[in-house]
């Protein structure tokens, strides 16, 4: 059964285009979905060897479903032959990344989706929010007379059309979604529609009563916005990011519950569009996830000069949507004493308190797996753990559903790691090398440990850490753009040169972080990377200077003349 990999004639034209893509004589006009890059996705370059492999299997596509070896009464005992090598439940970014890699590795793959292809990232997350943030960045620039004047520009009366901005976001989402679907189809991944659930070992049900078997299964069902108790979401005046991204209305005053990166990005959008913002944060400091120094600078740059105020150390225990001529009412409670504090009256509230795993109805009870606060427990290889703490064979969980690192590109990386293991290569993803970014203006990005985390680790493991910093103020390109506001910070071990963490706040910080995350992923040390050359004048020189300003006490690597 495993060899029943079909190549129906439909795929022939596409294959030709893969080939031309891979060949140096490719026509520039040949349309290929693979040259596009999605949120957190790798570009898929199909190899010729793999095409060869695919040509070997020659069974018609139709027979595939008929040749199901699973029988309904056989639940509990694993089948011996399988419809697929790999079935992925959930076609978000994680599932997509895993599917592409699985095809590259020659696995016969299907992906089950009960909603829209693309998941949160493409439809209700990273992608549409970037469209709104692109608008807010430009609005911000056009409204900053001081900035414009300094560049010698005169602009008057920047305005916007709300519906057109909203359309930009939804158009982007549908474009990226179509690219995603096309890339899956072109690679020969079967897209099965319906909610997927696990019936037993290596058995999956999707839709009403479609049954398939798979050698291995990956759960990639993602997450949904988390709404704390007491908050009534009406989708109009009290909303989650799902609604807010549609930008159906721009309130004059909006309260944002939670000052993590979702809240922060929305504050950037709303203030640029003319709203005033009130943050409600349960912890004592805003932006608690960031390195404290970056957080303080971010507050100075992104909060204080804007029309934003905040309440920290409070819970929003009750939020009532606007109705009967009354505004949105938010009751605040002190996070420590649990005493009621204040009541806010605003035009709208955005709940950005994080995301909850979407794992209900997955049939995990059928294989004795208990979720923890909804998250599917996994080990470091993303293998699902059952209630007794043993790994469940052939079952993996990636992305937001396992809660390890709730980022689109982390899900994709976890999926690739799983496929590597399935195809005979042990692989453990180093989560400390996964970068994260907040697309405010200016942007914030980070990889590895924060300074307090590094200090703690250093104390435990008895080594010393050092911190190096550089400012965007000294960078030619940043100054040319009149965007000298920013800081890059490196936390490293002075005895070995190991990079522990890098944090950047400044123009294009999200793009700049990858030099550092790649260095961490590949184990490159400060004393080596400081010899890498950066084009002048570019923002990347901020990192160049950062590495050069670090002092490592080992014999420095001597570059060899070539």
């Amino acid at each position: 059964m495993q060899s029943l990999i079909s190549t129906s004639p439909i795929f022939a034209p596409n294959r030709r285009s893969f080939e031309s893509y891979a060949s140096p004589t490719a026509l520039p006009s040949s349309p290929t979905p693979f040259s596009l890059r999605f949120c957190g996705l790798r570009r898929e370059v199909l190899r010729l060897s793999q095409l060869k492999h695919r040509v070997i299997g020659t069974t018609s596509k139709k027979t595939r479903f008929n040749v199901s070896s699973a029988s309904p009464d056989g639940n509990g005992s694993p089948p011996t032959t399988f419809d697929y090598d790999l079935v992925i439940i959930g076609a978000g970014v994680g599932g997509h990344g895993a599917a592409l890699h699985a095809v590259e590795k020659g696995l016969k793959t299907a992906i089950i989706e009960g909603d829209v292809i693309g998941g949160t990232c493409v439809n209700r997350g990273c992608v549409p929010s970037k469209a709104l943030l692109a608008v807010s960045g430009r609005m911000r620039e056009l409204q900053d007379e001081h900035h414009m004047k300094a560049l010698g520009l005169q602009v008057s009366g920047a305005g916007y059309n709300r519906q057109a901005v909203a359309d930009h976001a939804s158009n982007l989402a549908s474009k990226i979604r179509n690219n995603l679907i096309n890339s899956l189809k072109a690679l020969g991944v079967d897209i099965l529609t319906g909610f997927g659930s696990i019936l037993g070992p290596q058995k999956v049900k999707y839709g009403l009563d479609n049954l398939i078997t798979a050698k291995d299964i990956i759960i990639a069902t993602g997450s949904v916005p988390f709404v704390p108790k007491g908050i009534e979401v009406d989708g109009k005046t009290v909303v989650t990011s799902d609604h807010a991204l549609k930008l159906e209305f721009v309130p004059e005053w909006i309260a944002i519950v939670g000052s993590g990166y979702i809240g922060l990005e929305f504050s950037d959008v709303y203030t640029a569009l003319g709203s005033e913002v009130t943050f409600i944060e349960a912890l004592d400091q805003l932006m608690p996830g960031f390195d404290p120094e970056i957080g303080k600078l971010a507050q100075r740059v992104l909060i204080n000069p804007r029309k934003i105020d905040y309440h920290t150390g409070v819970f929003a225990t009750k939020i009532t949507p606007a109705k009967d001529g009354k505004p949105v009412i938010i009751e605040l409670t002190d996070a420590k004493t649990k005493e009621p504090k204040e009541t806010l009256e605003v035009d709208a509230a955005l709940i950005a308190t994080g995301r909850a795993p979407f794992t209900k109805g997955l049939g995990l009870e059928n294989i004795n797996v208990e979720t923890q606060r909804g998250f599917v427990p996994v080990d470091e290889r993303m293998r699902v753990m059952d209630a007794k703490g043993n790994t469940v064979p052939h079952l993996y969980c990636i992305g937001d559903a396992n809660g390890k690192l709730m980022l689109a590109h982390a899900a994709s990386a976890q999926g690739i790691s799983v496929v590597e293991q399935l195809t005979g290569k042990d692989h453990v993803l180093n989560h400390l090398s996964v970068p994260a970014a907040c697309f405010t203006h200016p942007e914030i990005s980070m990889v590895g440990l924060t300074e307090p985390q590094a200090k703690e680790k250093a104390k435990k493991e008895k080594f010393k850490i050092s911190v190096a910093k550089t400012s965007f103020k000294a960078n030619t390109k940043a100054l040319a753009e009149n965007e000298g506001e920013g800081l890059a910070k490196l936390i490293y071990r002075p005895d070995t040169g190991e990079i522990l963490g890098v944090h950047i706040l400044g123009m294009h910080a999200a793009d700049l972080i990858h030099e550092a995350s790649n260095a961490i992923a590949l184990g490159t040390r400060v004393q080596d990377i400081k010899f890498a050359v950066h084009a002048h004048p570019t923002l990347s020189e901020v990192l160049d200077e950062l590495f050069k300003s670090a002092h490592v006490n080992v014999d420095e690597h001597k570059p060899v003349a070539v």
Partner: protein
Amino acid sequence: MSSSLLQPRAPPSLSSSSSISGTKPQWRFTSLPAVTFTRRARNSTVNAKIREIFMPALSSTMTEGKIVSWIKSEGDVLSKGESVVVVESDKADMDVETFYDGILAAIVVPEGESAPVGAPIGLLAETEAEIEEARAKAASSGGSSPPTTAADAPVAAPPPSAPVAAPPTPAAAPVVADGPRKIVLTPYAKKLAKQHKVDISKVVGTGPFGRITPADVEAAAGITPVKSKPPPVTAPAVTAAAAPAKSAPTFAEIPGATVVPFTTMQAAVSKNMIESLSVPTFRVGYPVMTDALDALYAKVKSKGVTMTALLAKAAAMALAQHPVVNASCKDGKSFTYNSSINIAVAVAINGGLITPVLQDADKLDLYLLSEKWKELVEKARSKQLQPHEYNSGTFTLSNLGMFGVDRFDAILPPGQGAIMAVGASKPTPVADKDGYFSVKNQMLVNVTADHRIVYGADLAAFLKTFAKIVQEPDSLTM
């Protein structure tokens, strides 16, 4: 875990740091040029030795600063160059040091609070004896009164605010309900209130649900909003209850009013008018008999001479004798004597105002001047005037006499020393030196001049000359 309920479930690498509060990072750029405490030159002699410590401007964009910590406390002896206070600007935390020896007598702005740039944050006494006096001063200047120690305040201090004399407040201000009123401020209104030290309990909110908007605070502080928010082009699609009603920025909106944006010309006029406010002007009026001029005009009219040309020529001739009135003050420090006498004449053209310039009006003869004037008016109507034909004036003439206006007051255009406003010539009974009454044609002229360079006597002398030329106009035709 419940304590992080409202916390975004950030990825572990992000959120796990949330409970760890690291040592507060601080940037202390002590190597930067030290900030001097500006000494406030007081006009009174009482507190000559008490210096105010100002909130320094640590960056070009800083408008207010927050006191992170006072390194010194009240009563500490300070010596020149010592760090006294750590100030947080919009950019960074910085140590601020003193350039004077003395005793820190009083802390006006405590730690954690903010003050606008230039506002006093502490008082420095020179001797112990003055500490009490300084404290008394601090106590009186503290409280909620804005730092309006007017004339000698540094430039950066907010303008002296007359809290009540605001621009016209909305006519129908909502009536304050009896009993305790819940005050709701928007975030920006809160910031503005703090910045301008507005007592919000006295502000009546005009926003939705009676909330206090930034415009309300600005009105209470007597400031006109710097810029209005970007106009969202489309109305909110969701007609939720919260769909906000637009609040008028400062002026009451009269229903049905239409807003017509300025044309380029009107915008230029507006800009010039605002600029003119920075020039100290004064006005001198003078009656001029015009019987002789009228007679001359009747004679030369047929030759194409206009009254405007006659008046311009007369003014130019008078200016030739009083060059200071033809001068201008460009920098506030010097006279700029213009080498030629160029008379700009204000002309109303549809929807605007322009001042074509009769160059070298003193040198050209009346007929040439009249021809030139016709040409300029033609060009002005067809918007063909070249810049040098409307911006090279050294003196301006504005005549509303043809409308029957008997006298008026002109605004001095920036860059010129004086402008003459000419009223209508009307038969007026006048008494001569022997006490005999007669009826003569009299016209009132009123000159507005820049008092930095043109003084009263200068203007009076110029007007006397001008009147003499008009009353004995034969020289005009020569």
